[in-house]
């Protein structure tokens, strides 16, 4: 029986010795087909190398390589799994560069057979991993004899669909048909945060942290280059627990004014204590863009019912809240301003630097602890009364006891009633603070034991 041969294969350097049923041993590579018809085969000794992919679409690519020294080569590909069956000598395989249409060899599909050095493959899955092999062969008498020792093995991923061509895959693109916009990142990620200010800096206040209470939320739209296109800020002024007519502003640390095209929505009509650039940012702020949100909190929330303050006494009329929406355009319809673009890596959450301008005295700013002042801040206040700011080491707006004048809570929380110490309302705050933030990091969340609601204004 011709098929009942026992074949033993030995590899010795570059030579294969095949012993047919005639048990003849040859000194040169030999395949013995049968007793009467023996063929001498020299197997390839140099495999393909230097794989390279050119990605044409999420479902097609061109696979290139440097050929070895076979008379031809077969190219196989397999989705998500490595090859598990080897091509058989003398077998006939149908090649088709449309993945899945050619012959199967185990899990692999035959894409190409011939002597070229590239193949363009179609009908691939997007966002999928494919393994590729290039196996050299020697053709003798129309039969291919595959080299099992020298071959090229590689793998790649196909890309993801991108309708608008901004390099952002549609599954990630909030604006899949707008090449100028791709992502929207919102801070805080959920709802609003709350800013709480004490306004007697550099003196110590009463620590009810309600002299000005403003909720905030902002969304940054960015493009496929990870540059900021526009940003929308919403500020909800909720309470005024002091009699100073404070202004509210924010600085974008590291973002220069000339990187902003326009600012709209501010409530600064009638401001006499500062001036503005044509784009709406504050004038004479050379290092960081500053946006004056409103000039006087009392313009937004006037007193009512004969009370001194607004919304901090439960017996006083509820004046409601005021919402200020500010829009910043950075890249206008694809055109960057004179200062160039701003990376999202620069304008991250840390860049947001809100502050009040005490009684509209321009140089008197109160920022969050360790946030840098604007270029208009009067540095002469630092180190006076209770302030222990030391600009040289980056210490700002902290007292000698390391206490702040402002708090930023990453979710909207109720504020204290007038005259109520913050610690009486937020029962685990002191534990959090004195543990340097390690214990009770959720002190502000509405959970049992965190709040004394009788001390809070909850509306």
């Amino acid at each position: 029986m011709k098929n009942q041969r026992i074949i033993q294969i030995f590899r010795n350097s570059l030579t294969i010795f095949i012993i047919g049923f005639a048990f003849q041993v040859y000194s040169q590579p030999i395949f013995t087909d049968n007793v009467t018809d023996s063929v001498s085969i020299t197997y390839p000794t140099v495999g393909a190398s230097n794989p390279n992919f050119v990605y044409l679409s999420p479902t097609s690519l061109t696979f290139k390589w440097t050929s070895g020294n076979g008379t031809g080569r077969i190219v196989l590909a397999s989705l998500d799994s490595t090859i598990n069956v080897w091509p058989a000598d003398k077998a006939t395989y149908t090649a088709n560069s449309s993945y899945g249409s050619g012959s199967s060899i185990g899990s692999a599909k035959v894409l190409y057979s011939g002597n070229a050095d590239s193949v363009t493959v179609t009908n691939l899955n997007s966002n999928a991993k494919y393994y590729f092999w290039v196996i050299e062969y020697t053709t003798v008498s129309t039969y291919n004899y595959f080299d099992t020792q020298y071959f090229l093995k590689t793998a790649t991923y196909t890309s993801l669909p991108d309708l608008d061509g901004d390099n952002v895959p549609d599954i990630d693109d909030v604006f899949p048909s707008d090449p100028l916009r791709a992502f929207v990142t919102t801070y805080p990620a959920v709802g609003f945060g709350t800013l709480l200010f004490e306004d007697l800096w550099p003196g110590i206040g009463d620590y009810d942290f309600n002299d000005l209470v403003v909720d905030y939320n902002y969304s940054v739209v960015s493009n496929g280059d990870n540059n900021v296109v526009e940003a929308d800020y919403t500020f909800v002024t909720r309470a005024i627990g002091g009699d100073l007519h404070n202004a509210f502003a924010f600085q974008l640390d590291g973002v220069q004014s000339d990187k902003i095209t326009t600012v709209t929505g501010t409530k600064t009509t009638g401001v006499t204590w500062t001036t503005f650039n044509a784009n709406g940012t504050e004038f004479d702020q050379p290092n960081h863009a500053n946006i004056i949100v409103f000039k006087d909190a009392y313009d937004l929330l006037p007193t009512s019912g004969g009370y001194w303050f607004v919304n901090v006494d439960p017996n006083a009329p509820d004046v409601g809240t005021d919402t200020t929406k500010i829009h910043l355009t950075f890249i206008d319809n694809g055109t960057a301003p004179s200062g160039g673009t701003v990376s999202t890596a620069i304008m991250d959450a840390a860049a947001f630097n809100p502050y009040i301008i005490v009684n509209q005295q321009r140089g008197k700013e109160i920022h969050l602890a360790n946030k840098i002042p604007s270029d208009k801040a009067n540095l002469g206040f630092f180190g006076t009364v209770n302030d222990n700011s030391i600009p040289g080491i980056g210490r700002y707006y902290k007292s000698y006891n390391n206490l702040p004048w402002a708090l930023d809570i990453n979710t909207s929380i109720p504020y204290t009633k007038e005259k109520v110490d913050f610690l009486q309302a937020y029962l685990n705050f002191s534990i959090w603070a004195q543990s340097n933030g390690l214990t009770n990091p959720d002190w502000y969340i509405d959970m049992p034991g965190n709040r004394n609601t009788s001390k809070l204004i909850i509306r």
Partner: protein
Amino acid sequence: MNMIRFFIVIGIALILMVGACKRTSIERNGEIKPQQSFGGLKTSDKFNWNTNSELMIQFEGNQTDPRIAALKILDDNGHIYYQKLQKAKESFIAKVIIPSHIQNLRWSYAGKFEKFNPKTGKIVVNLQP
């Protein structure tokens, strides 16, 4: 007469003292200051009073992976805390600010995702299976 003068002087002094006390307890048009317990807090110089914490992300690129996709940090409800377009073949390190109270987060990239505990302070994103 001397007694009368004495009581007048004492009376004036008392009035002045009461007035002085009133000025120290009533500030800024009548905003009465409560006792300060907040003022007694003792914290480290390094404490920033921040309700957010920093998370370091290390993305390990894979030279053979041509994909470009958004790397995102999300919570269990799908709220996004960080995102950027990232080439799979390029490595990078970024600092992400997340709320301190968040317990569970996950990163996602091109359909792959992995949960992690943000308390570790650092995560390594590796796309290899």
